[in-house]
């Protein structure tokens, strides 16, 4: 039986791992290669690296990071952040990443999803969606530029569009829940998971092992992503997995 995946996320800036709480206030948390090996040992099913470098040099450094991680890691990993063209995807995937994650660039130019999927296959193309509840819309609205800019897209319409264009997986972040540690956004995750045929990774709000159970059962997520609770050792991948096993959720 296919297991539910636990995915630690590492934010990388200029080659170093940092973590933002609700997209601001960063704290240095270490070396990407070491952290990747640590999480592999801990039983992480995959890793996501998010490049938050603003500079060209930072982006170049990311390719080196990807190469170093790929050389030592025996589980899949995804790289997101600053991927704006097919050329960017080629650089990252050829450096050894298994998947790339597109966010703002996919909203600005949805054809990019298709270009990537045609060239590398859908399984390499993750579309990351930052969503926030919108009263006037009566649903969740899609945001870009690290959550700073509202778009015209309603989340369900956008994820369907993304999948039609070739997205192989959706990485769904609830901006309302992110950083609050009160649990994942179950309603949002369930709504998205039930409206697309591809796997959905829930993100934003993990504060305890119980939150993972909820998002896999009620939220119907295929995978769940978290950062700070793992980085600051509030819980561990191991602990979360043993809790899930007790609750009858199938994990590796």
């Amino acid at each position, binding site marked *: 039986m*296919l297991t539910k995946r636990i995915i630690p996320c590492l934010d990388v800036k200029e080659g170093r791992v940092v973590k933002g709480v609700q997209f601001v206030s960063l704290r240095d948390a270490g070396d990407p290669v070491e952290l990747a090996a640590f999480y592999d040992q801990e039983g992480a099913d995959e890793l996501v690296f998010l490049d938050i470098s603003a500079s060209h040099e930072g982006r170049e450094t990311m390719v080196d990071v990807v190469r170093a991680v790929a050389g030592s890691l025996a589980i899949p990993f995804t790289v997101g952040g600053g991927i704006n063209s097919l050329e960017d995807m080629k650089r990252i995937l050829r450096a*050894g990443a298994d998947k790339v994650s597109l966010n703002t660039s996919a909203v600005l130019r949805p054809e990019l999803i298709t270009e990537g999927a045609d060239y590398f296959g859908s399984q*390499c193309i993750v579309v990351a969606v930052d969503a926030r509840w919108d009263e006037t819309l009566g649903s969740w609205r899609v945001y870009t530029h690290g959550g700073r800019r509202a778009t015209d897209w309603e989340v369900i319409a956008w994820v369907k569009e993304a999948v039609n264009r070739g997205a192989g*997986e959706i990485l769904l972040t609830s901006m309302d829940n992110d950083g609050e540690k009160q649990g994942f956004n179950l309603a949002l995750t369930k709504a998205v998971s039930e409206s697309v*045929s*591809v796997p959905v990774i829930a993100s934003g709000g993990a504060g305890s092992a119980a939150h993972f159970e909820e998002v896999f059962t009620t939220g119907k997520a*295929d995978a769940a992503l978290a950062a700070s609770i793992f980085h600051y050792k509030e819980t561990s991948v191991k602990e979360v997995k043993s809790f899930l096993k007790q609750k009858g959720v199938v994990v*590796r």
Partner: protein
Amino acid sequence: MIGIVDYGMGNLFSVSKALERLQTEFIISDDPAELAKADGIILPGVGSFRDAMMLLERKKLATFLKNHVDKGGFLLGICLGMQLLFEESEENGPAKGLSLLPGKVVRFSGRDSKNNAYKVPHMGWNKLTFNNHSPLLKGLEEDYVYFVHSYFVVTNETEVVAASAKYDVDVPAIVAKDNVFGMQFHPEKSGSMGMSLLKNYLSLVKGRQ
């Protein structure tokens, strides 16, 4: 020495990195003359079956692979590389494969027998069930490996299926017949279990030298 077939389909980097970690010599090439120097071949690949076969034909690699196997050489297909070992695929209309193993490649329906929707691709960690003895499974216990695929193999020759994984149907995960092997999952991305499986393949190749 291992020859990794580079025909422009997919990520050869992680396969080659896995071989480096296992301290195995390898070459990466699309040239049959170069690959002929290798003792065992690995055929990786992600993407479309039809495109892959077209490239293998165009670069004369299809003939090379068939000859290599005829001469008793070892061949391991990974992911799409495993599917290519079979007779045909329904991906983008029927396309002929290498026909080294009996069977065909079909798409997951996305609906189970009770008409409930399930996710396609089959993506993530799934547990292997060992069905038949194979030298690839030597010393190993049933464990989880990492899959990413939307198509799977259907074969009437059950003895070819050394291991399978449950995803709506029994998905052939490791196939083996004489000197031809295939893994539907990515051993190079499957942690220590994947590395052990690759190691067993390398031992087989080494044993023949």
